[in-house]
């Protein structure tokens, strides 16, 4: 082996060593634990707070409403659909800060007549012409008991 190459060998080893040392400090902890990413990131993603409550928590207090609902067209619908996120209400029920949707606009999201909506899936009315003398749907329809007090 030529002598000039021999002199380069320690230099090469030094550079490779230096590379490995620098790399060691640059790679974050738990990187490569499961794959080419930080393993701790999985727990970080999983530990985020929920905003939407667990619907089982609703049933724990409001089982009477659940029973009513399950005898209805709206049976099986989650409370969170109309009443919004609700985690703050579950944490502190005194706040009572859940949505109580009542108007044409909200009910119309599902029930306004639209050619793209299957009539087999959802009952539809034209919210612009349906009983215009009333403002809110809940004046006649109780969402938990739709035909309550009607003929």
């Amino acid at each position, binding site marked *: 082996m030529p002598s000039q190459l021999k002199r380069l060998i320690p230099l090469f080893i030094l550079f490779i060593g230096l590379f490995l040392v620098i790399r060691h400090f640059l790679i974050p902890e738990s990187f490569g634990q499961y794959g080419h*990413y930080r393993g701790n990131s999985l727990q*970080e993603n999983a530990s985020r707070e929920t905003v939407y409550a667990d619907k089982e928590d609703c049933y724990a207090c409001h089982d009477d409403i659940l029973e009513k609902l399950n005898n209805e067209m709206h049976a099986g619908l989650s409370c969170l659909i109309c009443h919004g996120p609700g985690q703050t209400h579950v944490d502190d029920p005194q706040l009572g800060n859940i949505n109580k949707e009542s108007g044409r606009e909200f009910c119309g*999201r*599902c029930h306004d007549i639209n050619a*793209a909506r299957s009539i087999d899936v959802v009952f539809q009315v034209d919210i612009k012409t349906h009983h215009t003398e009333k403002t809110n749907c809940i004046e006649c329809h109780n969402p938990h008991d739709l035909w309550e007090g009607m003929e």
Partner: protein
Amino acid sequence: MKASAAAAGTIILSSVTRPFSMLLIASDPPPEEGPWWGIGIDITKCIGCGLCARGCKMENSVPDEPFYFRTWVEQYTILNNGEVKIESPNGGIDGFTQSVPDEEIFKTFFVPKMCNHCEKSPCTQVCPVGATYESPEGISLVDQTYCIGCGYCVQACPYGCRYLHPEKKVVDKCTLCYHRLEKGLVPVCMEVCPSKARIYGNLKDRDSELVQFLREHDYQVLKPHLNTGSKLFYNALTAEVS
């Protein structure tokens, strides 16, 4: 001597390249243990209420501006003259009103869109720092503390499911509500879907709701020619949808 040197060299080399193995193998097979999540969307059941898109924004604090979405709904209207009209006012978060009179419509339907959680995700392959990855459960996630916000993955996603968060300056996307799944809760878009048009399930479990859905419907994925290994299966998907 030579053989042992070669063996030692291989061991050293593999120890150095181990964290980069994702570059060598484009996709890891699903792990033996644990769930392997997939999604099913039934277009015939979607009524376009947009509560999924609205709920997702609230649960995941997605910015309100109408171009940041983790999930959104599109209305496809195929007119009698063959023209295809695609609408998504505000991503559907305020619901839809019919804009074309009945007489002109040949066919119309809603298509909810979200991350496909691909098995061979184009987005995770292009990340230069390893800040986005597929979790052992098959969910494509972002490590927001490690992301440098270069936006390569936003470009790489063929489904447009990623965006740059305007305040955090990093990439944000659907996590299939990973924080809820790990607590045993249902992802918000599926929880608030009144017609059960969106479902999720364990693809490894023969009895799961999703596998049952796949068994009973003629399902299709978006852009199958890209071979992304999408795990979002649509029932009644037509050729107009991309």
